[in-house]
C-alpha cells in the first residue's frame, strides 16, 4: 500500500486517476485523491456496503431519518445518487422527528425542508408533541438537564418508527457513521452492556414486528462525511443540541478521536473487533417481547417510552431512569404508588 503523499507545495497527483492533482487526503486510507475520484470512491463504498449487506430490495419504500445534520444530509444525497446510478428502484422518503427544542430543532428542520426541495423527496415530520403530548422543552422543565437525553433518545427511536408506520415504510435508514458505531462499541464495553455490545455492530437491526433499521454509512468515517458535504457544498445544520450532551458517551467519543489520531484505521479496527466478539452462550440475554400497553418491542412488561411517559404524566420523572421493573405491574393497572415509592422518583430540587 502506498503511504500518504509528501506534504509539500508540489501538487500531488490523485492516486486513483493519476491525472488530476489531488485536493484531499482520505482520512480513512491516507490516499490523496482529486475531487471527482473522492466522490466516486465515497459513493461506491456506500454502494458496496448496501449491496454486500443486501440492505434493500427493488420496489421498497425507504424512510431516511433526516435531522438536518451532516450525516443524514449526506445519507439522503448519496442514497438518491445511488438509487439513480445503480437502479435500486427504491422509493425514498425523508422522515424527521420534531423533538420540540427551541433554538435547535426548529432551525435544523428548516434545513430538512430545504433538502426536501433540493433533492425532490417527500418529507414527513412527526413531533413529540403530537405523539406524546410533551415537547423536549417541557420535559427539560420538569426533569432538569441531568437525564433529559434518556427521554429524547427513547422517544426519538419510537417516534421514527411510528412515523415510518404512518407512511407504510419498509425500512428506515439512519445516518450513523463509522465513528458512531465504534464509539458505541467502546461505550458498551466500558459499561459492560453485553447485550447491546452484541447488537450494536449489526448493520441491520429490528426483529419481527418492528420496521428494520439500517446504517448504510456504517463504514464511512465522520471526517469523510464532512469532506464529502464540504466539497459537494451540501446544505446542512451543524449546531450542538442546546441541552447538555450525554457525558459518558463524551468520554468514549474523546477516546476514539485520540485513537484515530494515533492510528487512523483505529475506527474501523474497533468495528472489526465489535463484529468479531464472541459472547459465551450461557450469558443471560434479555428476552425481547412486546410492551403490554403500546405493543412496541420491549424486554420488559412495559416499554421504556411508556414508562418514561407515565413518569412524566404522574409528575415522577425518575420512574424511567434506572430500573424500577417491580413497579411495572402497578403502572399497568394504573394504581397509585406508595408515598415511599414516590419519594425516590420525584425530580431533584434545583
Amino acid at each position, binding site marked *: 500500500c502506498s503511504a500518504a503523499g509528501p506534504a509539500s507545495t508540489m501538487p500531488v497527483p490523485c492516486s486513483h486517476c493519476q491525472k488530476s492533482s489531488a485536493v484531499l487526503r482520505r482520512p480513512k486510507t491516507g490516499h490523496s485523491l482529486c475531487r471527482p475520484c473522492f466522490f466516486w470512491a465515497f459513493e461506491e463504498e456506500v454502494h458496496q456496503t448496501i449491496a454486500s449487506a443486501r440492505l434493500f430490495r427493488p420496489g421498497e419504500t425507504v424512510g431516511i431519518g433526516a435531522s438536518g445534520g451532516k450525516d443524514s444530509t449526506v445519507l439522503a444525497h448519496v442514497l438518491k445518487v445511488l438509487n439513480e446510478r445503480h437502479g435500486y428502484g427504491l422509493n425514498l422518503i425523508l422522515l424527521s422527528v420534531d423533538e420540540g427544542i427551541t433554538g435547535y430543532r426548529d432551525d435544523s428542520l428548516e434545513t430538512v425542508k430545504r433538502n426536501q426541495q433540493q433533492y425532490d423527496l417527500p418529507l414527513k415530520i412527526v413531533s413529540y408533541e403530537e405523539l406524546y403530548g410533551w415537547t423536549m422543552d417541557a420535559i427539560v422543565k420538569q426533569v432538569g438537564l441531568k437525564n433529559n437525553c434518556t427521554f429524547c433518545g427513547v422517544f426519538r427511536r419510537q417516534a421514527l418508527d411510528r412515523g415510518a408506520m404512518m407512511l407504510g415504510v419498509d425500512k428506515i435508514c439512519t445516518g450513523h457513521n463509522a465513528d458512531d458505531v465504534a464509539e458505541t462499541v467502546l461505550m458498551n464495553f466500558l459499561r459492560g452492556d453485553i447485550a447491546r455490545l452484541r447488537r450494536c455492530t449489526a448493520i441491520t437491526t429490528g426483529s419481527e414486528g418492528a420496521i428494520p433499521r439500517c446504517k448504510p454509512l456504517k463504514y464511512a468515517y465522520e471526517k469523510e462525511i464532512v469532506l464529502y458535504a464540504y466539497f459537494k457544498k451540501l446544505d446542512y445544520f451543524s449546531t450542538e443540541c442546546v441541552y447538555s450532551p450525554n457525558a459518558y458517551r463524551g468520554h468514549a467519543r474523546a477516546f476514539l478521536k485520540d485513537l484515530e489520531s494515533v492510528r487512523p484505521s483505529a475506527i474501523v479496527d474497533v468495528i472489526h473487533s*465489535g463484529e468479531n466478539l464472541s459472547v459465551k452462550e450461557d450469558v443471560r440475554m434479555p428476552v425481547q417481547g412486546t410492551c403490554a400497553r403500546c405493543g412496541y418491542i420491549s424486554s420488559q412488561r412495559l416499554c421504556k417510552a411508556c414508562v418514561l411517559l407515565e413518569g412524566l404524566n404522574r409528575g415522577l420523572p425518575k420512574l424511567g431512569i434506572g430500573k424500577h421493573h417491580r413497579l411495572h405491574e402497578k403502572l399497568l393497572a394504573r394504581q397509585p404508588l406508595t408515598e415511599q415509592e414516590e419519594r425516590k422518583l420525584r425530580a431533584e430540587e434545583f
Partner: protein
Amino acid sequence: MCQIHEEYQDHMVENTSIPSISQKCVKCKEGSAVLVIRVGDAFCRGCFKEYFVHKFRAMLGKTRLIFPGEKVLLALSGGPASSSMLSQVQEGLSREAPKKLRFIPGIVYIDEGSACGQSLEERAGRIAQMESIFQATGFPFYVVHLEEVFRLPSSVLQCVSSIPGKPGGSYKAAVDQFIQDSQLFEAQSRLSELSTQDRPEEEVRTSGGRPFTFTLQETKAVERLLDSVKTLTAKEQILQMLRHHLIVHTARVKGYSKVMMGDSCSRLAVKLLSNISLGRGASLAMDTGFSDPRYGDITIIRPMREYSSKEIAFYNKMFGVSSVFIPNLGTKAPEKASIQRLTESFVNKLQMDFPSTISTIYRTSEKLNTACPQLSSDQEQAERCLLCLCALDTGAAEASAFRATLVSEQLSQKSCPEPPPGLSAPGLQRRPAGDERTDCCGSGGGSRCSADEDASSPDPRSLLCYSCRLIIKDMTSVETLPPYIVLETEHRRRRAQMREEISEFLLDPAQELCAALES
C-alpha cells in the same frame, strides 16, 4: 448477576460513611483497620494478608488447571504484579497445611534491554538484580535475552496438539491422565530439546560472571527489526509477541506445560480496551482470559487477574515483596505515543471519575467466549494467524469492516480493469427475494484473501489475522523479521500450494477433520 438492583446499590455506596482511622477491621472486628480495599471494606493487616493469599489459592483451586507435580513456569518481568505472583507461589509451596500447592515452579525472565537501547553494562546490572531475587527463591530460573528470537525454531509458531482433556470430565480423571502421560511427556520433552535447539543453550541459565550468550550481530538485528517498525503501537505489539514466543519456547525446551503470567485486573482492563482498539476483538478472550490454550501443549494462565494494581501495591509494600523497575518501550513516552499508552491513561483517568470502570471492563471480558476450535490438524494450522496463533478473523462475511477496508483501499488506488473477485457485489436487481447465495460468498470469497498475493513474496500478510496485518502495515520492511517467522511463512505457503494441487482429491474437509479426531 442481579443487575436489577444495581442502580440502588450505587446509591447505597454513596451513603456509606468514610472509614476513619479508629475503625475496626470488617472481617475480624478486632484488629484496627490499615487499609480500605473497596469502598467501605477496611481490613486489618492480618485479614488483608489472608484475603490476598486466599484469592490466589482460590483462583487456582476453582479453575483446576494445574495438576499435582506439574512443572509451571512463572514469567517474571520484575514489576509489582509478577513479583507478587512469585511471592504467592512461594507462600503456597511453603505451607505445611494439607492444602499446600503441589506444582513444581520455575522462573523465566526475558531481558529486553536491546529493545530500549540499553548498554550491556546496564543490562548486566539489571539481570544481576533480578537473579539475586530469583536465587533467593531456590527455584530454577532462566534468563533469556531478546536476541534469542533470532535462533528460535519455526515450531514456536505451530500449535502443538495436546490430547485435549474432555471439558466435562472430572478433575480427578484429568489428574490421573496427567500422571500417566507425564512419563511419556518427560521423554518427549527431552526429545524436543534435542530436535529444536540449534546450539546448546545451557549456559544461558546462569550467566553469572560470564559474558552474554548472544552476538553483537543479533543485538543489531533486534535494533534493525524495531527500527523497521514505524509506530510505537506496532513496536509494542511485536515486542509482546516475541516475548511470548521466547517464553513458550523456553517452557517447551525445559519441559514445562503451564506458564503463569502476572497480569493484574487493572492491566487486563487496559489490555482489553487496547486490544479492541487494535482490532483484536476476535481473540480478546484468549488474550486476556484465565487460561490461554493457543499454543496447544503449553497453556498460559493468568492467576493474578482478580487483583487490582492497588491491592498488589499495598500487599507488596506491607509484606516486603520487592520489585524491580525495568524501563520498557513505553516508559517516558507521551500519552499519545501509542494506542496502548493512550488506552492506559484513558482507563486510569476514567477510573478516577467512575471507580467501577476497571472492574466493569474486567467483568465484561468474563462474558466472552474462550472456546477456541481445539483442533490441530493441518487444515487448522492454516486457519491460525502466523504470528499470534489465534483463529483467523479475515475470512469474514461479505459485509464486514474487513471487506469495507479492502474496498476503500481498492477504490483509492489506480483503477484496476475489473473489480477484485468476491467484491463484485451483485446489483440489487439480480437479487430477487429469497434467492440462494451461490456465487460470490462462502468459499469463493474466503479464499481470495490468501490467493490474491504473490505466493513467492516474503510478505506474510495473507497468513495473518486482521490485527497482525496492521503490524506488518506499519513496517517498512518484513525482511527484518527473525528467521523463524520467515521459515514458517514459507512452510505454510508450501502447504497451501500443495493443498491447492491436490484439492480435487480431498474430501470434505469437515469430514476429514472428524475422521482425524476419531482415530
